[in-house]
């Protein structure tokens, strides 16, 4: 591994700003690695360093960035992992990508993902599965599997992902890196190919918490006039420095930290809690009584919103069109038959069913009420605790193909991450050790807009854990 690749993104930005390294050399070092990728992490890699790259005076000074396929990037393939968008090159760029480019990030690659972000293993991509760099017989997690694998393997210094029910935190955990799902609304969704609009949120993947904070700093800020649900962030995002957790109260929800979680994951989780106590935090059991129902509510709400969002793929304005259909409706139904994969079809059907006449109140309406109860559970807990902490995932990375035949068992991967998504609150996953040679993630969630405190606590824990993620970058 070259010295350039070994640099953290923050260190690289500092050296670029000081003129100690050149942006084109750094870009080329990553571009060569990305182009030689054997993990199938990318759907597109830049052909060359940009001729007129960002100025060294910009905050990110030319640090390359990998971007999940579903962010629209002008003139660059943006297919959301779907065959229905094969060949689509958008005429505009997503607001968050534009914002990062203005801050000095350069587009290195687009990353592979589960089709329309629906999946927990990256096996639902029309462009093939991504392999986990810790063990290539295993999945990297999903849906942002390409972004997580690319960062873990040192094919990109950092990456953008999106999280609807765990799609940043779960792959970050399975690949041994840091992933942050920010507060809903703090990052613009304009130009993000939509899955479930009331849940979708863009966030950063990075090797460490400092890089995560630096990337997120330039993703949020002011509200975006192009996204009416965007709120920006009330605070500037600071780079964390705290090494202690004195006075911090950690709540461990009993519902998300026992049954269904494998022993190796629980062992690393408990060791991390002990480290938190050594740093001065108090650790106590708490309760999120409705959390066990979060998955059910999620698997009604997300498919319902998806069935509506995906109505736009009809073979008229972009993407593929089925050939030979006689009339207009046949053209729609054949295009959608050919263009969507099995999981997307499954969710469109669940969502359409849940919204259909006679079932709306029983399914969608009930799920929206459960969502309120879950938000209330978190509000209660945050009255007595600073953060809620859980294992990020019930297991470490599983083998390719292990869960593809049983959608329900795949959905259970999101057990610990979905409650925070429904409540719209920020949650980070940091690596907290290995179990049988595979990374384990530790999730820490705080109230809406508490990203600075979340990042600060995660940083203190990261220093105490001392996780070594360099193996897959070698």
């Amino acid at each position, binding site marked *: 591994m070259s010295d350039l690749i070994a640099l953290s993104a923050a260190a690289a930005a500092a050296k670029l700003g000081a003129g100690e390294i050149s942006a084109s050399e750094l870009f080329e070092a990553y571009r060569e690695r990305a182009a030689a990728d054997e993990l199938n992490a990318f759907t597109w890699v830049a052909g060359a360093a940009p001729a007129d790259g960002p100025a060294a005076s910009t905050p990110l000074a030319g640090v390359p960035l990998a971007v999940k396929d579903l962010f629209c990037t002008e003139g660059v393939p943006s297919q959301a992992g779907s065959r229905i968008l094969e060949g689509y090159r958008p005429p505009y760029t997503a607001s968050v990508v534009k914002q990062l480019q203005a801050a000095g990030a350069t587009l290195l690659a687009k990353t592979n993902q589960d089709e329309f972000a629906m999946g927990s293993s990256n096996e639902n991509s029309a462009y093939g599965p991504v392999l986990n760099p810790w063990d290539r017989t295993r999945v990297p997690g999903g849906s942002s599997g390409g972004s997580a694998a690319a960062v873990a393997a040192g094919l990109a210094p950092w990456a953008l992902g999106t999280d609807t029910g765990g799609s940043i935190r779960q792959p970050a955990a399975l690949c041994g890196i840091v992933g942050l799902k920010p507060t809903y609304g703090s990052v613009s969704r304009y130009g993000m190919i939509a899955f479930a609009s009331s849940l979708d949120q863009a966030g950063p993947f990075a090797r460490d918490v400092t890089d995560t904070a630096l990337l997120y700093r330039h993703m949020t800020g002011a509200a975006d006039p192009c996204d009416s649900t965007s709120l920006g962030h009330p605070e500037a995002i600071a780079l964390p420095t705290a090494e202690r957790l004195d006075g911090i109260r950690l709540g461990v929800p009993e519902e998300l930290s026992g049954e269904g979680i494998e022993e190796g994951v629980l062992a690393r989780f408990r060791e991390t809690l002990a480290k938190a106590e050594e740093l001065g935090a108090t650790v106590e059991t708490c309760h999120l009584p409705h959390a066990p129902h979060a998955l059910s509510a999620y698997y009604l709400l997300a498919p319902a919103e998806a069935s509506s969002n995906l109505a736009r793929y009809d073979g008229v304005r972009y993407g593929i069109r089925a050939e030979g259909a006689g009339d207009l409706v046949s*053209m729609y139904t054949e295009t959608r038959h050919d263009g969507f994969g099995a999981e997307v079809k499954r969710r469109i059907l669940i969502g359409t069913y849940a919204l259909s006449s006679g079932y709306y109140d029983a399914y969608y309406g009930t799920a929206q009420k459960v969502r309120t109860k879950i938000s209330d559970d978190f509000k209660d807990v945050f009255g007595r605790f600073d953060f809620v902490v859980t294992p990020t995932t019930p297991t470490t990375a599983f083998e390719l193909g292990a869960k593809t035949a049983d959608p329900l068992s795949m959905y259970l991967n999101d057990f610990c991450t979905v409650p925070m998504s429904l409540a719209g609150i920020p949650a980070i996953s940091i690596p907290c050790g290995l179990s049988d040679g595979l990374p384990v993630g530790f999730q820490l969630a705080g109230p809406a807009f508490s990203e600075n405190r979340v990042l600060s606590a995660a940083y203190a824990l990261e220093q105490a854990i001392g996780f070594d993620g360099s193996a897959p970058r070698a």
Partner: protein
Amino acid sequence: MIDREQVLHVARLARLRLSDEEVETMASELSSILGHIETISELDLEGVPATTHVVEVANALRADEPRESLPRDVVLAAAPATQDGGFLVPSPQA
């Protein structure tokens, strides 16, 4: 339980053709998924308001000022078929 007829009905609503094989698989998978999901009907949710937005936000409006839109030829370039400066589709009554 979701049967074949219900799958076909919902697929029609979603403008999605399914092969015979897909109809069979979906019927069994959707039954299993909805069976799990239906546990929420056991909760007492009397009087609980439905979440409409997770973060408090009042009418987020931007100034109603005309802005340039994308040029027509740029938008049409992404379409599978075009004619006379518009999207070309098969006739609804063909």
